[in-house]
């Protein structure tokens, strides 16, 4: 996936000289996850460069650059490092189009490597998606596989609206044969990545794999699980999700972030509001515990697993 993102950046920069890339360590190092590897050598320091170590500065200057017609793609390096930029994101990036009645638009992409399961120490494994998704004006997407990573990043860069592009770190090393450039579904659409008839499991980013694992295990026990990869957190693709839920009549959402006030609450509420009479059971949430993200040696206890998903499904009254 890191390679697919690298290719997407390279192709976008080659296609449009307004696309610029900066952030911490994105230059000669190629980013701590090597997503920007080789780009500075290819495009030069006027197109991609290392910024001072200051996240609010990165986002705030990107606002000014986008105002001048550039298409900045900036990196936050790690999820929890984006918090110093919260004000710029919420007060300006999200609101600029609105406060100026559409006269000033911000075609910028904020790349945020996100979530855990890589053995990261404190502040390197957060799931911050709910903060961004609950902010009107932002578009928030999270690919789960290399093909989507390429296609969605190209689309995000071409978007005239600011996009928070979240990259699940645990999927950086996932591999898939790809003939580039690849175009998958539009980035605001969810996708059914596994067909099933009994349960809809809704995941995004890292938990799509968890959902697929659970579906695989359940199939052995004769339970047919459909898996929906949300891909876009904001906007939410009600149509695809509701169609699946109406088919299966049961739904559960999986995410790594804490459950309380988390993104899963929005999913459960939307699914229920729109499909209550089609539901045979309450919508479940399988999430991380309501605790700060734990240390590396303890994270396996915190992260939702396929077993936890299956255990949660067992809490439903299946005869009903």
């Amino acid at each position, binding site marked *: 996936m890191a390679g697919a993102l690298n290719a997407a950046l390279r192709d976008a920069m080659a296609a449009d000289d307004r696309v*610029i890339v900066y952030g911490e360590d994105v230059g000669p190092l190629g980013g701590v996850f090597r997503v920007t590897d080789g780009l500075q050598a290819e495009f030069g320091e*006027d197109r991609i460069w290392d*910024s*001072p170590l*200051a996240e*609010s*500065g990165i*986002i*705030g*200057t*990107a*606002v*000014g*650059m*986008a*105002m*001048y*017609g*550039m298409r900045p793609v900036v990196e936050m390096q790690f999820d929890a490092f984006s918090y*110093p930029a919260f*004000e*710029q994101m919420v*007060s*300006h990036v999200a*609101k*600029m*189009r*609105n*406060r*100026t*009645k*559409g*006269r*000033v*638009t911000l075609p910028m992409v904020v790349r945020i490597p996100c979530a855990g399961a890589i053995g990261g120490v404190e502040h390197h494994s957060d799931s911050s998606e709910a903060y961004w998704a609950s902010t*009107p*004006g932002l*578009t928030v997407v999270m690919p789960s596989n290399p093909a989507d990573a390429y296609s969605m990043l190209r689309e995000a860069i071409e*978007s*005239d*609206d600011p996009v928070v592009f979240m990259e699940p770190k645990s999927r950086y090393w996932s591999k898939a044969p790809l003939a580039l450039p690849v175009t998958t579904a539009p980035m*605001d659409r969810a996708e059914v990545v596994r067909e099933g008839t009994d349960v809809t499991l809704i995941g995004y980013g890292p938990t799509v794999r968890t959902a697929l694992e659970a579906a695989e295990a359940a199939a052995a026990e004769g339970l047919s699980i459909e898996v929906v990869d949300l891909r876009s957190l904001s*906007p*939410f693709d*009600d*149509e695809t999700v509701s169609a699946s839920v109406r088919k299966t009549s049961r739904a559960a959402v999986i995410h790594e972030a804490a459950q309380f006030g988390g993104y899963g609450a929005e999913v459960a509420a939307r699914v229920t509001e729109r499909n209550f009479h089609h539901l045979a059971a309450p919508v479940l949430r399988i999430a991380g515990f309501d605790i700060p993200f734990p240390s590396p040696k303890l994270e396996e206890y915190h992260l939702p697993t396929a077993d936890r998903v299956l255990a949660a499904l067992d809490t439903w009254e299946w005869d009903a």
Partner: protein
Amino acid sequence: MSLNVEHASVRTLPSEKPLRLLDNAGHAVTGSATGGFGLPDTQTLLELYRKMVVARRFDVQVTALTKQGRLATYPSAYGQEACEIGAVAALTAEDWLFPTYRDSIALLTRGIEPADILQSFRGDWHNGYDQHAHRTAAQATPLATQALHAVGLSHAARLRHDPIVALTFLGDGATSEGDAHEAFNFAAVWQTPTVFVVQNNQFAISVPLERQTRAATLADKAVGYGMPGYHVDGNDIAAMYAVTSAAVERARSGGGPTLIEGVTYRIEAHTNSDDPTRYRAARDVEHWKRRDPIERLEKFLVSEGVLTESMRTEITDAAEALAARTRDVMTIEAELDPLELFDHVYGRERAALLEQRASLEAEIAAGAFASHEGAAR
């Protein structure tokens, strides 16, 4: 307009006494207090005087309209005319301005219409003017955030080889914010064509400067970032104009950013909802009223024989005409379209917003909002 600049050195500490080209009695200053800057020519000064008189009248008028309930709020810049106008007048129409909520008279100086300037304070929409047409960003309310936008925009212009400078205003309180630091540092590291003008009006709402910083001057902060800093008498428009012009030209020619501190005073309250008698003494306000930027320049222009009685009348008439126009536009309630609430959130249509828009439209059609009857389109 002409200016005379000798030099500026990055390693020099800003002067402890503010740079001044005209003293409080309106006499030209000579010697070290000028920092090597020369007095702008009298025609330039006359033009700056006109702009200050018109802006003062506008500010007084808007404050009065606020007291009459025509505006939800208005942060006055009374007393800060030299800072605001001296700095903005140094820009060309191609340059960009990144203002804060207190900089309405700077917007006026940029040629923006009163109704458009006041749209946000009246409560009609967050911002009312065309940012691109006036090369003036939306007024920022969160402190120091706009300084980073100025750095980014001017850096982008430089990457494009466009000779454009971005000037941004900050208050003394804003220099305590993290974004001020990040903006100063990014600008210095990237050597962007940015001019930071700190209007030190002594108070951040009620908190005085000594509770804000231990630095001897706010201009001192520039030294740590590796850019020139100037400590200027912000009630001397000749000095503000000369120093800002030099900084703008230096930025335009690739010399990087500059930090200018204009020492001034906020004569009015923070906004109409503030009570300044709780935190400052009347004698301090009187002291600063005696250092009025307009009177100072007026004394000089009269003593030079540049400002005649007929000219003064003509300028006063122009100011009164603008005030009348401002009164007129503020008595007309703007036609607001509540459905426009949904129009400028995203460029791409969103199903959820279309649904919410339709539901509001139905509510309006059903007469749920009597005041907006007929507003649905």
